[in-house]
């Protein structure tokens, strides 16, 4: 037999070629969805006007369109749609990391309790009416809540100075419930008007996005994506077990800390700008693994693109189904995600039995 074997079709749904085609397809779909998303809403904007506006604003080409359309497209719809992509990508990435970290397919970005902490802080800012808190802006307050929760969970989730995944999972769930209790108490005290705002935020929404929401979230998700791609092999090694990963040169305590921090940062910025959007981080990594197998050098890029496209699509649906009113994004992701989770559980059980 010749010493060097060429890559052959693997055991997954898509081989290397299918994978490349899928990535390209997702990128094209992402662009198309963003254009559709910008055109969709209470005031529909034709695709030609969308393209004309973006051409003038981004490249300085052409004369653009009338001022009202220009403002709707550039100041409201475009940042909102881009943010939907970034948040979807960031939540999916965090989901990949958490599932690898605790080696449990049912983990999602919220098991660390980070989202509950962000919600509690945001609710406090919205209901207690503390001017200083509100003056910071809800995203900043929410991120501070996420960061504080993360520090607490990290401190509680350690054994002998090192992250212990099962203990951290329990710490995350416990701190999450505590924060949820705080949020519930604050809701009881809130006026009906405040309560409506709080609920809309907690269920997740991209309404009211402005350009200022984008830079930090985009930078965090991009940096995290690069770092995680660099660590793709170490993530695969982690799936072989702690001992195997150690024996193959992974500095496990440091790597775990790295993963927790990156996942919490991604989750924190996503929740800060868009509220609690569930099921994306749980569902998208599974879809990616189903298509291209579990190797992280393939799962990570695909999850980023799929997650981004998915949330842009959901955001479009939220603006269409009850137009001119909007649905919270989290309701739609849960409507799709919960049946998916049930299907996943039944599928896993079938494999074990068979």
């Amino acid at each position: 037999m010749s010493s060097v074997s060429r890559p052959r079709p693997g055991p997954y749904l898509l081989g290397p070629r299918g994978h490349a085609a899928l990535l390209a397809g997702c990128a094209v779909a992402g662009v198309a969805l963003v254009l559709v998303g910008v055109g969709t809403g209470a005031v529909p904007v034709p695709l030609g006007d969308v393209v004309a506006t973006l051409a003038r604003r981004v490249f300085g080409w052409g004369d653009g369109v009338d001022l009202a359309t220009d403002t709707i497209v550039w100041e409201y719809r475009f940042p909102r749609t881009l943010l939907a992509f970034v948040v979807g990508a960031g939540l999916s990435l965090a989901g990949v990391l958490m599932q690898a970290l605790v080696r449990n397919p049912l983990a999602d970005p919220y098991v660390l309790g980070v989202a509950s902490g962000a919600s509690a802080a945001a609710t406090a800012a919205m209901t207690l009416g503390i001017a200083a808190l509100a003056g910071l802006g809800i995203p900043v307050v929410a991120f501070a809540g996420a960061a504080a929760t993360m520090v607490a969970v990290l401190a509680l989730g350690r054994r002998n100075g090192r992250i212990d995944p099962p203990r951290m999972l329990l710490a995350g769930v416990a701190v999450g419930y505590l924060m949820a209790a705080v949020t519930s108490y604050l809701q009881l005290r809130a006026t009906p008007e405040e309560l409506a705002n709080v609920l809309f935020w907690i269920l997740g929404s991209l309404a009211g996005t402005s350009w200022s929401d984008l830079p930090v979230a985009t930078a965090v998700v991009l940096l995290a994506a690069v770092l995680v791609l660099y660590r793709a092999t170490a993530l695969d090694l982690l799936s072989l077990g702690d001992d195997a990963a150690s024996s193959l040169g992974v500095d496990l305590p440091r790597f775990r800390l790295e993963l927790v921090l990156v996942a919490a940062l991604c989750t924190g910025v996503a929740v800060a700008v868009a509220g609690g959007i569930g099921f994306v981080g749980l569902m998208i990594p599974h879809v990616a693994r189903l298509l291209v197998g579990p190797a992280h050098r393939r799962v990570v890029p695909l999850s980023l693109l799929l997650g981004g496209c998915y949330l842009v699509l959901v955001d479009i649906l939220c603006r269409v189904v009850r137009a001119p009113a909007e649905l919270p994004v989290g309701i739609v992701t849960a409507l799709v995600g919960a049946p998916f989770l049930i299907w996943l559980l039944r599928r896993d059980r079938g494999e074990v039995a068979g």
Partner: protein
Amino acid sequence: MSDALVVEGLTVHLGDRAVLGGADLHVPQGAVVGLLGGNGSGKSSLLRAVYRAVRPEAGVVAVDGADVWRELSARAAARRTAAVTQMPGPLELSVREVVELGRAPHASGWGGLSDADRSAVARAVDSVGIAHLVDRRCTTLSGGERQRVLLARALVGEPRLLVLDEPTNHLDVAAQHDLLGLVRASGTSAVVALHDLDLAGAYCDLVHVLAGGRVVARGPVVDVLTPDLVREVFGVAVHVDAHPLTGRPRFSTAPLTITHQEEPR
């Protein structure tokens, strides 16, 4: 030339409990050394300290003359020592992907496979007879096949020392012999934790016996595993003779309560 593995004065704590208190172990170049001892005697802890999964409180672990904990990085140590560990539940990766991960300590940052990596993978899967399985998912393999995959993952890194922690657990008899035969055939220096005295007798050049966190006996199998030591350490009576088929030492064990005069039923 220094020994493939030198362990001296190894002390390992799990939480507050000392599981090893000054254990010594030597693996000469090219030798297969068996590590024996009852459950909880510290076999796994010793091996984990060798492949850098648990940091010892005190003592030295040196592979080919280099101190694994003080002189080598995690990756540099991983290039010298490869471990066959237990798989953590179902693994969806393909056999080829798992074996390729054994090259990770040799890979550079972004981790594409070089031609050298690919030919090492081809050699490793050939040498343990799993070339026909490379495109299967690990979840679809039998226990014996899975252990071969893990052995290929260890051999593909071209290590100077193999560490195997009870690699024959849950394997059928044929697979047990196959696996240890492959370890011997690889020619790599190896330390193997085993429960089965006959397998130790058949495949190990030397054995070390752990009890109470220390190595209490070491040497060739027949010299070490005397009836007295086996009674002392394992709490069973034993009769040692030569295996009628292989000539290797054979251990017939019985509970201590049995008397030698009792007629076989």
